[in-house]
C-alpha cells in the first residue's frame, strides 16, 4: 500500500533536511509557511481590531443588549432594536426560504426532466452570486411600492393583524416584513444550491430499493431521501441563517433604519448589520465603540452559525461515506 503523496512530501522534506543543512527546498517551504502565517495574522487582526475598538462600549453591556433607543452622539446606546430586528427578519426569511427552498430542491431533483435540471441548477447558482445591493434595490424600488399598494392593505384586513403586523391604518413603505421578504428572496438561491446538492447526493441504490418495496414517490422522499439528507439540510439551514444575519445594505435600504424596538412587522426597524452601515458615516468616539460592539455581537452570531453549519455538513459527508 503506497503512502499518500502529502506524507511522501513531508517525509522527503524531512529526509532532505537531514541530508543538507541549507537545502534549496528551504526557501519554498518557508515562503509558504510565512505567507500562511501572514494570512493567519491578518485574520487575527481582523477579530482583534474590532474587539479592541469595542472595548469602551462594554462597560455598558446591559444597555447595549437590552436598551431601547440609540441616542447619537453620546449615548445611551441601546442595541435591543437591532437585535430584535436581526432575529425577526432572519428567522422569518429562513422559515420562508427553507420551506419554499426545500420544495424547490425536491422539485428540481424529482420532477424536472434531466436536461432542464442542469440549466436550472446553473441558473440558481448564478442567482446566488448576484450582489445583495441589487436585491436591496429591487426590494426598495419595486417591492416596497407594490406592498404599500396591494399587500399591506390586504394583510391589515386579516384577523390578528394588529397583534403581529401593527395597527391597521398605519402604512409605512419600509418595514421589517419587507426586509424579511427581501432577505428570503436573497437566501433562497443559496439554500436551494446547497440542499439540491445534498438531496441529489443521496445514493441512488437506496432510492431504487424503496421503489422496489412499493413506495410512492412522496414516500421515497419522505421515508428515505429526507432522513438520509437531514443532516446536510440542517447545514444548509445554518449557512443560510449565517448569511441572512449578516446582510447589510439590503436590510438598510428596506427596513427603514429606525431604532426603537417593536415587534410589529409592518413598522420600520433595523438589524445589527444595517444599523452599523447606517450610523457609521457620522459616528464619533463613543458611538464608534458602540457600533464596534454591535459588530462583535454580529461576529459571535455569524461565527457560531458558521461553525454549526460546517460540522453538520462534514457529518453528513461521513454518514453517507459509510453506506
Amino acid at each position: 500500500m503506497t503512502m499518500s503523496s502529502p506524507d511522501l512530501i513531508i517525509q522527503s522534506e524531512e529526509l532532505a533536511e537531514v541530508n543538507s543543512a541549507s537545502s534549496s527546498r528551504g526557501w519554498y517551504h518557508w515562503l509558504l509557511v510565512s505567507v500562511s502565517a501572514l494570512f493567519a495574522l491578518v485574520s487575527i487582526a481582523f477579530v482583534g481590531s474590532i474587539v479592541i475598538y469595542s472595548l469602551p462600549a462594554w462597560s455598558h453591556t446591559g444597555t447595549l443588549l437590552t436598551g431601547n433607543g440609540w441616542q447619537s452622539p453620546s449615548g445611551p446606546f441601546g442595541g435591543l432594536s437591532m437585535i430584535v430586528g436581526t432575529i425577526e427578519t432572519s428567522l422569518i426569511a429562513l422559515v420562508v426560504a427553507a420551506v419554499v427552498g426545500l420544495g424547490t430542491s425536491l422539485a428540481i431533483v424529482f420532477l424536472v426532466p434531466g436536461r432542464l435540471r442542469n440549466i436550472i441548477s446553473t441558473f440558481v447558482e448564478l442567482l446566488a452570486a448576484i450582489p445583495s445591493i441589487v436585491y436591496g434595490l429591487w426590494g426598495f424600488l419595486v417591492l416596497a411600492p407594490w406592498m404599500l399598494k396591494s399587500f399591506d392593505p390586504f394583510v391589515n384586513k386579516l384577523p390578528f393583524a394588529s397583534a403581529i403586523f401593527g395597527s391597521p391604518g398605519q402604512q409605512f413603505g419600509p418595514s421589517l416584513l419587507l426586509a424579511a421578504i427581501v432577505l428570503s428572496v436573497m437566501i433562497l438561491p443559496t439554500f436551494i444550491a446547497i440542499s439540491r446538492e445534498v438531496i441529489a447526493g443521496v445514493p441512488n441504490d437506496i432510492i431504487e430499493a424503496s421503489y422496489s418495496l412499493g413506495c410512492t414517490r412522496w414516500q421515497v422522499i419522505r421515508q428515505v431521501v429526507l432522513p438520509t439528507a437531514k443532516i446536510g439540510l440542517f447545514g444548509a439551514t445554518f449557512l443560510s441563517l449565517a448569511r441572512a444575519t449578516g446582510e447589510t445594505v439590503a436590510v438598510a435600504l428596506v427596513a427603514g433604519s429606525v431604532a426603537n424596538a417593536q415587534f410589529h412587522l409592518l413598522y420600520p426597524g433595523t438589524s445589527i448589520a444595517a444599523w452599523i452601515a447606517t450610523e457609521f458615516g457620522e459616528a464619533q468616539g463613543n458611538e464608534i465603540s458602540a457600533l464596534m460592539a454591535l459588530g462583535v455581537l454580529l461576529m459571535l452570531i455569524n461565527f457560531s452559525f458558521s461553525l454549526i453549519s460546517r460540522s453538520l455538513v462534514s457529518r453528513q459527508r461521513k454518514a453517507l461515506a459509510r453506506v
Partner: protein
Amino acid sequence: MEKIVSESTSSTSADQVAVKTVSEIAMSLKDVAVSFNGKTAVRDATFDVAKNKVTSLIGPSGSGKTTLLRGLNRLHDLTPGAKVSGTILLEGTDIYRGDITVTELRTRVGMVFQRPNPFPTMSIYDNVVSGLRFNGIKKKSLLDEVAEKSLRDAALWESVENRLKVSAGNLSGGEQQRLCIARALALEPEVLLMDEPTSALDPIATLRIEELMSTLKERVTIIIVTHNMQQAARISDDCAFLLMGEDRAGELIEFDTTDKIFNNPADPRTLDYTLGRFG
C-alpha cells in the same frame, strides 16, 4: 467444473423443458425488449419462469441481463427514455398493461440489488419491516412476527435477534445483503429478483447466500442474474443465456434447464460461454 456430455439423452431441448402448465408458471416473457432513447439494450426475450424454482440469467457483461431483470418490476419506469416492449405476465396479468398498479406489482415482485443497500438511517428491525410500513401496515404484532420470520428465512435471525434496534450500518457486507433479502421477503412476494447479489461479497458470504436460495425457493420464485456461471450451475434449475449481438444489443440465445445448458446446449455459442472461451 466437470462437464459431462451426456450421450444417452436423445431427447431434444423441447422435450427436456417439459411443458409447464399455467399454474406452474410464475412469470412469462414473450418478445420482451428494452430500449433507451431508441437504442435497443436487450431483445427477443421469450421464456417462462417456473414457480418455486431458481431461474438464472447468465451471459458476459453487456448482454442485457440486468436490464431485462429490471423490466420485471418496472424499475425502468424511473428512467426517462426507457421503453419496454413485449409482454410480461405475472400470474397471467400483463404487468405493464394489465389490471395491476406499479406499487402492487412491486409488492409481489421483490428485488435484491448487487451492492447491499439497507436504509442507513434505520435500525435492523426498521429495515426489515420497512416494506410493510411503507405499504401502510402498522400492527406491531404482525410486524414483529414477519420480521422474525423473514430474518430466519434469510439465515440472519440468530446473528441479530439481540440487536434489532442497532443501526443497519453495523453489519458486515454479507449480513447487510441478507438483511436486504429479509427486507424483500417481508412483503411475501411471489417472485424475488436478484441482481448479482453476491458479486460484492467475499466467498464465505457468497456461499451462505447460495445455500439460502435452495430453501428460499420453496417460498418464492427466484430469478437471479449472475455473471458467475459456476454459481448458476450450482444453484439454478433453469437458465437463460444472453449474449450481446452485433448491434450491441443483448439477445436471448437459449433457455433451458440448467442441466441441459451446461451439459448439452443446443447453441454453439452457449457451449463456448460455458467452456469459458469468452467472458
